[in-house]
């Protein structure tokens, strides 16, 4: 279970896309079985231990109460579980040198990072902005302070600690790519400043394959400029918004994510399962998605097709430069940037987000700004328009409908619609 960074680096050099589930179970035996099944999948995989949402918010009393009642949680409670149990969960991975990443979602990650370092784990993810603004009520400044301490502690761990920024996935959908790129790069700079020498930058598949390809190209170029002195790779997240209802639609969407990742030069892909729209997927469903994504990835040539330049890269660079101008420390610069609205995540309700930006999906499926607030982004009059509740629903369901529609109209047997 060591050597996450080394493993991904070697796989990428050999032309294999690393695929990874979002798996997390509170039952240690199930968590262990999930890691074993991920390792044995017919794909180049790394393992995942996703934590439960009580641990995410530090409500350990609720974790213990659930354990006493025998109520399953939506993830593995790594902080409150005794080390011997967790070491057994990880023992198969350790024996086979299988890398494992801990995923959590916490704006105050101190206990979680302490626990995973004590267990000898060398990979986790998140970030002071990406784990604070979308899901929590914690003030951004508190999150930046907590993340500073934890990143420094993690960077001092033995081996080659690897930290992924979740900044390329803000709110999962309806965030134009320039802002996602800026946020993941800025979190990467924050990690580096606090001692991290190996990191990954994220980007989520959104509403347009062409725009996503342009964005990944831009992310690689900017990372090569600003993070050339640290080991880094790009991780793509399969679509995180409202999923197709049909299995065929869901698999087609995942296949497109795998193509996007390979062509865009990403080293790793976080998959979704068709079941995830309705419930927590089983181990077998996770393995099936991993193998499907890997099979598609093997059919895609590594060469990047020509991408358009609609200005995503220039916009991202402008945002990054505007933030870095605010303070010499990236953490303080991020706090000031949100306070001044220089960064403003559309539809994010957190009290520290200005909340004056809006985005829409245009006729070609690309995400565009409807309002930019105080961000240093050029406005295009044709784009600036209010977003209505009905239009918002349309944007949120756009991908679901596009991928389900061909299946529902071409006579596919009803059996796949379950």
């Amino acid at each position: 279970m060591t050597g996450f960074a080394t493993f991904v680096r070697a796989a990428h050099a050999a032309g294999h896309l690393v695929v990874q589930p979002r798996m997390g179970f509170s039952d240690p035996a199930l968590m262990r079985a999930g890691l074993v099944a991920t390792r044995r999948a017919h794909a180049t995989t790394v393992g995942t231990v996703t934590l439960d949402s009580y641990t995410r918010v530090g409500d350990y009393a609720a974790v213990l109460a659930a354990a006493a009642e025998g109520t399953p949680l939506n993830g593995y409670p790594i902080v409150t579980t005794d080390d011997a149990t967790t070491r057994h969960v990880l023992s198969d991975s350790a024996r086979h040198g299988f890398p494992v990443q801990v995923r959590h979602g916490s704006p105050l990650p101190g206990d979680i990072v302490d626990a995973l370092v004590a267990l000898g784990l060398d990979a986790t993810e998140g970030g002071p902005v990406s784990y604070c603004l979308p899901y929590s009520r914690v003030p951004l400044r508190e999150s930046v302070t907590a993340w500073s301490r934890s990143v420094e502690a993690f960077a001092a761990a033995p081996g080659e600690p690897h930290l992924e920024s979740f900044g390329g996935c803000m709110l999962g959908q309806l965030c134009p790519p320039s802002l996602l790129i800026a946020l993941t790069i800025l979190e990467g700079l924050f990690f580096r400043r606090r001692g991290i020498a190996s990191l990954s930058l994220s980007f989520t598949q959104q509403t347009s394959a062409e725009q996503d390809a342009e964005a990944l190209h831009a992310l690689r170029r900017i990372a090569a400029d600003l993070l050339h002195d640290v080991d880094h790779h790009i991780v793509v997240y399969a679509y995180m918004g409202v999923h197709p209802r049909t299995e065929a639609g869901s698999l087609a969407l995942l296949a497109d994510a795998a193509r996007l990742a390979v062509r865009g030069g990403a080293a790793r892909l976080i998959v979704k399962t068709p079941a995830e729209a309705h419930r927590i997927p089983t181990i077998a469903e996770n393995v099936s998605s991993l193998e499907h994504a890997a099979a598609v990835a093997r059919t895609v040539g590594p060469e990047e097709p020509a991408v358009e330049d609609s200005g995503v890269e220039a916009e991202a660079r402008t945002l990054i430069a505007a933030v870095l101008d605010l303070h010499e420390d990236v953490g303080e610069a991020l706090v000031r940037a949100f306070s001044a609205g220089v960064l403003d995540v559309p539809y994010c309700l957190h009290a520290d987000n200005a909340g004056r930006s809006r985005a829409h999906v245009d006729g070609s499926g690309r995400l565009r700004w409807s309002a930019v607030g105080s961000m240093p982004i050029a406005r295009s009059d044709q784009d600036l328009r209010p977003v209505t509740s009905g239009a918002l629903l349309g944007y949120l369901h756009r991908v679901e409908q596009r991928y389900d529609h061909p299946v529902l109209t071409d006579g596919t047997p009803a059996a796949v619609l379950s």
Partner: protein
Amino acid sequence: MLNHLRDEGRRVLLCTVSSDSHTWNLVFLQLLLEEHGHDVTNLGSCTPDDLVVARCLSDRPDLLVISTVNGHGHADGKRLITKLRREPALRTLPVVIGGKLGIAGAADVDRAGELVEAGFDAVFAEGADLSGFNRFVSTARERRSLEGAAP
């Protein structure tokens, strides 16, 4: 078509329950309510019970709308409405809850009655008609005090 609903804008406090980090439902409802002429204060994700009670007491909204989709709405909603109704000043505040309230799908519909009994004025479960919700928001008036409500 919307005109008959626009005659009186209400001051609406919008929130979710303490365990629910989802926000797209809150973003959608804010836009919808504003389009119908209401003045919306959106408290965002994971709203703690005490914050909701405090803001109801300080803001004195015409109406409280609670939207939740994480499947804990029955348990969390019942606890929240009990705390709200314990405040003498909030016994008659119109309060509505809606969204995906449980994890059992259709079987949850039967449980709407429990929520009304606990003190909600209306319950709009998953799949409910939006026009019914809009009508409720525009016409809800202070409810009569709960029978048998504490002293």
